[in-house]
């Protein structure tokens, strides 16, 4: 399929040229502005005005109005006409001679300078180098001359600037700046007439085929090549565009960007310079001339003149798109950039990109489509709207008009092919995902997010949860039924939660946990709900669901209360008393909660501590009384109790003592409780005599004195020692335990005191570690204090030294010098110095120091009087 790039519009009818005369042919054309000049084989020049107008159908049409015709009087065909509009002259080639006529009157203008006879071809420089607006540069080829003449045409004369010789006879030429592009008899070449540099282009037999040399732009030429090729060459002799392929019989070529138009015996062909493709073929018989004048392509048979009117670019692009030629359409669009105002171009370009994207989308070329959508800044809703039901019902979107594509919707596109449907959906998912992460969703985030949610739900995509858990704009009203339809109940809960409807969310989840709804998204949903409740600031909701959670599992359920984060604000804070009261009927949970308060959060409240201790105690007592309970359970329970008793200073001791008083087993606990009451004798008694556990007794001493000073500790250890040594007790004194105690805790005893206590008959080696320890400790203490004394002294000396240094130079004391205070002489070197270094007797200073307060007092008085 091809594009319609041009339309052939008649301009000058045959009657207007020849009237009744049949044998008259058009030989050449010149067109500038509205003026159209024709040269005929009977040596006439015709001057028309071409008027453009729109037909009722909105098409461009031309009406030619003849102004004048003029016979040149040579009986030869007019071979070439070129306008020099600034000079109001027409340059005419007729009978191998160049003449100049007035553009308006068509009268011959006599001109001076050189005569140009025997001319076979000439051309005008469209890119002149002189910079003189009132002269035209021209290159002329003379018969049988291997040369090109460069001339300038002025109003009244023609000057020759230069003659450039060529290797062969030139037959056709074109000029751009200093570059002459020449068809010689066997080849094309480019000559720079300023530098003289020349460049062969390629061989071409001009005798056999008529050459074409056409300047198409700055320093670029189009040439007829072998095999009917249209070759491009620049001034350096390099081809920067691939050739276009004409027929071998090509007669003429013209350029109307981005097209190359060529004429042969029966067709006009249109190629794009952008991709070298043939775009359009127009049938045209008897074609004779084809030329472009300032963008206007004029075509003539020997009898009539036509204009090739380019169709609006937009139309051409749309035609290309209609035949799915995306690349070509884009190429053409981008080439149009230089002909269209910037804003207009941007709008056009975007639209074409979007259309191109949709074409590729329809062909499942998603990568390309995505790229074009992105570049074309597609309103993403255009795409979403193709998928039934994805846009929210509330969306105000309507597709753009004229439409960007021809698809009704996805069903239309896929014709029910499910595999395709899936592929389209996958594409939309990935596209929307990208749109979300860029900022091109601006303004329609609701539409995007809701559509994405629906797609995720429908396809069971794992990102559904991520979407709901993150910042999103999914519309609840639209999404909720959809999620329900696809059994995404957990997700629905998340959506409710995101929309501040926690109650609805919990309802959903509870139903799933209870098995009333089936959704296996989260196997750990119960834990999740509990966690959710623990963070839930709506206390009403928490209380409403706590029962359910605790009934399901107390251990996990209690986390509603224990995992609750502590925050400064009052809102969402639970009063522990309320919780405890509430948990009364869930004993396991209550215990866990109290543990949480006391052991983890370390709340210093007697009530909680006692409550926990009581619960522990009850548990232990319960286990004791239950025969089925095993050792491990019991010891674990006791350990907990013991730890609490030891660590807590808040439990109500008497109460607890009362509870365990009767138990034969809980001696250690009892001792601890006594310890709490500082009833160490009772405690030690229990430990030593009832429990007979001397390590426990020692540990007790350490524990009970842990936060006390050394003497308290010593006292306690001495107490234990006395208990051991008490001969009045049943079983007598516990010598071994006493020795061990001494040896192990030497530092906790006052050795002197201990030695007094010990029975005479004990052997020393028995107490060797104790004595060594004691001795070493005492020696150590002595040494340490000596060091301390030494250091203090050194410091003192240092200070004195500093002081002396501060005071300054030597003090001279001699037998002849007297003390300032008593005026007696010095008899000994010892002296004291007054401020300023005056030596005085030490005893005088001492005396003075004693007097000083009095004197000062007097001084103060005196100064008051002055």
């Amino acid at each position, binding site marked *: 399929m091809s594009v319609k790039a041009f339309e052939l519009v008649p301009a000058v009818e045959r009657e207007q040229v020849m009237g009744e005369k049949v044998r008259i042919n058009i030989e050449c054309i010149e067109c500038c502005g509205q003026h159209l000049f024709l040269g005929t084989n009977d040596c006439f020049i015709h001057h028309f005005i071409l008027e453009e107008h729109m037909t009722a159908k909105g098409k461009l049409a031309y009406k030619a109005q003849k102004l004048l015709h003029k016979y040149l009087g040579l009986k030869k065909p007019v071979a070439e006409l070129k306008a020099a509009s600034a000079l109001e002259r027409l340059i005419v080639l007729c009978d191998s001679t160049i003449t100049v006529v007035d553009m308006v009157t068509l009268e011959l203008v006599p001109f001076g300078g050189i005569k140009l006879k025997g001319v076979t071809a000439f051309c005008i420089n469209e890119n002149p180098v002189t910079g003189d607006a009132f002269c035209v540069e021209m290159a002329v080829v003379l018969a049988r001359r291997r040369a090109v003449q460069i001339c300038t045409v002025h109003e009244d004369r023609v000057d020759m600037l230069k003659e450039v010789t060529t290797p062969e006879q030139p037959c056709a030429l074109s000029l751009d700046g200093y570059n002459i592009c020449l068809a010689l008899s066997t080849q094309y070449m480019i000559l720079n007439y300023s530098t003289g540099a020349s460049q062969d282009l390629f061989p071409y037999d001009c005798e056999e085929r008529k050459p074409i040399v056409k300047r198409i732009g700055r320093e670029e030429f189009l040439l007829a*090549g072998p095999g009917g090729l249209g070759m491009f060459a620049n001034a350096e002799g390099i081809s920067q565009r*691939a*050739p276009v392929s004409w027929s071998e019989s090509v007669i003429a070529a013209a350029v109307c960007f981005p097209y190359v138009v060529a004429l042969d015996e029966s067709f006009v062909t249109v190629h794009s310079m952008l991709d070298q493709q043939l775009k359009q073929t127009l049938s045209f018989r008897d074609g004779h001339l084809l030329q472009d004048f300032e963008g206007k392509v004029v075509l003539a048979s020997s009898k009539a003149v036509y204009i090739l009117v380019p169709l609006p670019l937009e139309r051409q692009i749309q035609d290309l798109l209609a035949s799915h030629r995306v690349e070509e359409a884009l190429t053409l669009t981008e080439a149009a950039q230089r002909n269209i105002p910037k804003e207009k171009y941007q709008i056009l370009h975007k639209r074409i990109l979007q259309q191109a994207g949709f074409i590729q989308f329809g062909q499942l070329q998603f990568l390309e489509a995505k790229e074009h959508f992105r570049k074309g800044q597609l309103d993403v809703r255009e795409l979403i709207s193709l998928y039934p039901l994805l846009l929210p019902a509330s969306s105000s979107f309507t597709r753009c008009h004229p439409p960007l594509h021809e698809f009704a919707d996805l069903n239309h596109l896929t014709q029910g092919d499910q595999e395709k449907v899936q592929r389209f959906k996958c594409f939309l998912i990935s596209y929307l995902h990208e749109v979300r992460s860029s900022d091109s969703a601006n303004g329609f985030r609701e539409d995007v997010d809701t559509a994405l949610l629906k797609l995720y739900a429908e396809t069971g995509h794992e990102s559904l949860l991520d979407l709901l858990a993150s910042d999103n704009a999914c519309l609840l009203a639209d999404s909720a039924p959809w999620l329900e339809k696809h059994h995404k109940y957990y997700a629905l809960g998340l959506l409710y939660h995101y929309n501040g409807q926690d109650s609805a969310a919990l309802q959903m989840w509870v139903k799933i946990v209870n098995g009333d709804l089936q959704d296996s998204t989260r196997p750990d949903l119960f834990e999740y709900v509990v966690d959710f409740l623990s963070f839930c600031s709506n206390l009403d909701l928490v209380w409403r669901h706590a029962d359910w959670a605790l009934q399901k599992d107390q251990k996990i359920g209690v986390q509603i209360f224990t995992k609750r984060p502590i925050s400064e604000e009052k809102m969402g804070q639970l009063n522990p008393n309320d919780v405890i009261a509430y948990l009364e009927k869930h004993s396991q949970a209550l215990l866990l909660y109290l543990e949480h308060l006391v052991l983890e959060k370390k709340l210093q409240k007697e009530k909680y501590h006692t409550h926990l201790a009581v619960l522990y105690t009850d548990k232990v007592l319960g286990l004791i009384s239950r025969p089925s309970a095993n050792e491990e359970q019991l010891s674990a329970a006791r350990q907990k109790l013991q730890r609490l008793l030891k660590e807590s200073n808040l439990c109500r001791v008497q109460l607890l003592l009362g509870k365990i008083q009767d138990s034969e087993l809980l001696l250690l606990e009892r001792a601890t409780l006594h310890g709490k009451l500082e009833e160490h004798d009772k405690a030690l008694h229990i430990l030593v005599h009832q429990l007979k556990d001397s390590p426990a007794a020692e540990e007790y001493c350490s524990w009970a004195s842990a936060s006390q000073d050394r003497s308290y500790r010593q006292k306690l250890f001495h107490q234990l020692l006395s208990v051991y040594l008490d001969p009045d007790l049943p079983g007598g004194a516990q010598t071994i335990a006493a020795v061990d105690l001494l040896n192990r805790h030497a530092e906790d005893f006052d050795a002197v005191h201990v030695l007094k206590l010990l029975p005479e008959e004990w052997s020393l080696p028995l107490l060797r570690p104790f004595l060594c320890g004691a001795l070493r400790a005492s020696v150590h203490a002595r040494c340490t204090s000596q060091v301390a004394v030494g250091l203090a002294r050194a410091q003192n000396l240092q200070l004195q030294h500093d002081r002396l240094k501060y005071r300054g130079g030597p003090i001279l004391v001699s037998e002849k010098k007297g003390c300032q205070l008593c005026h007696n002489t010095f008899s000994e070197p010892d002296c004291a110095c007054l401020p300023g270094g005056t030596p005085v007797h030490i005893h005088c200073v001492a005396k003075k120091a004693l007097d000083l307060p009095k004197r000062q007092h007097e001084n103060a008085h005196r100064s008051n009087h002055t």
Partner: protein
Amino acid sequence: MPQASRTKKPDVKVVILGDMNVGKTSLLHRYTERKFKDTISTVGGAFFLKQWGPYNISIWDTAGREQFHGLGSMYCRGAAAVILTYDVTNWQSLAELENRFLSLTDTANTDCIFAIVGNKADLTDTLAHGPDTESERGDEAQPEVPCPTPPGTPLQHKQVSREDAVALYARVLRYKGLEEKACLPAETVCFETSAKTGYNVDVLFETLFDLVLPSILKKRSEGESSTVDLETPMEVKRTKAGCCA
């Protein structure tokens, strides 16, 4: 493969020469479109713009037909690299390179790089059946034209050996009046390829692109100023991975 923007100017030119039917168009097509399909006889010439890192490289496919022979010199004018292509199953195609095509390269740059490429290696070498893995990129989803030789189809006789190509390379250098030692070694620039299977095709083009980079830099610096810039090293080493993939 991302095509260079439609309107960019090329920085450097690579030209593929060789007799008709040796597979020039197919090679370019394989490289740019990543597939092998039936080609129609190239009319005149065509080119493709390849973006290579920050540069645009134009690759010209020429017509091998005698009729268009005269255009060769023009295509080669200013070329930084010329790929002389023959068909490994056709001795004449190698001979033609020397007889007809070598003289066309007179218009190429003086530092033009020459590559000698024997195409259709799939017909004579089992090795060339799989596409060379290192150059095959995973961007081709559609099924390949089935390329393994069907059982029973014997490999054709290889008329041109690698040694012949290496020898031609030496003669090319001599023709150019170049010292063999000062030029790229034959191992670097003699390839055997298959446009049909893709064997060695990416390697061929990408090796050449890397080799012409200094030429681009030179062209740029000449274009920018006439001052000699001692700082810009001419032997800029580029790794393949660093270029657009």
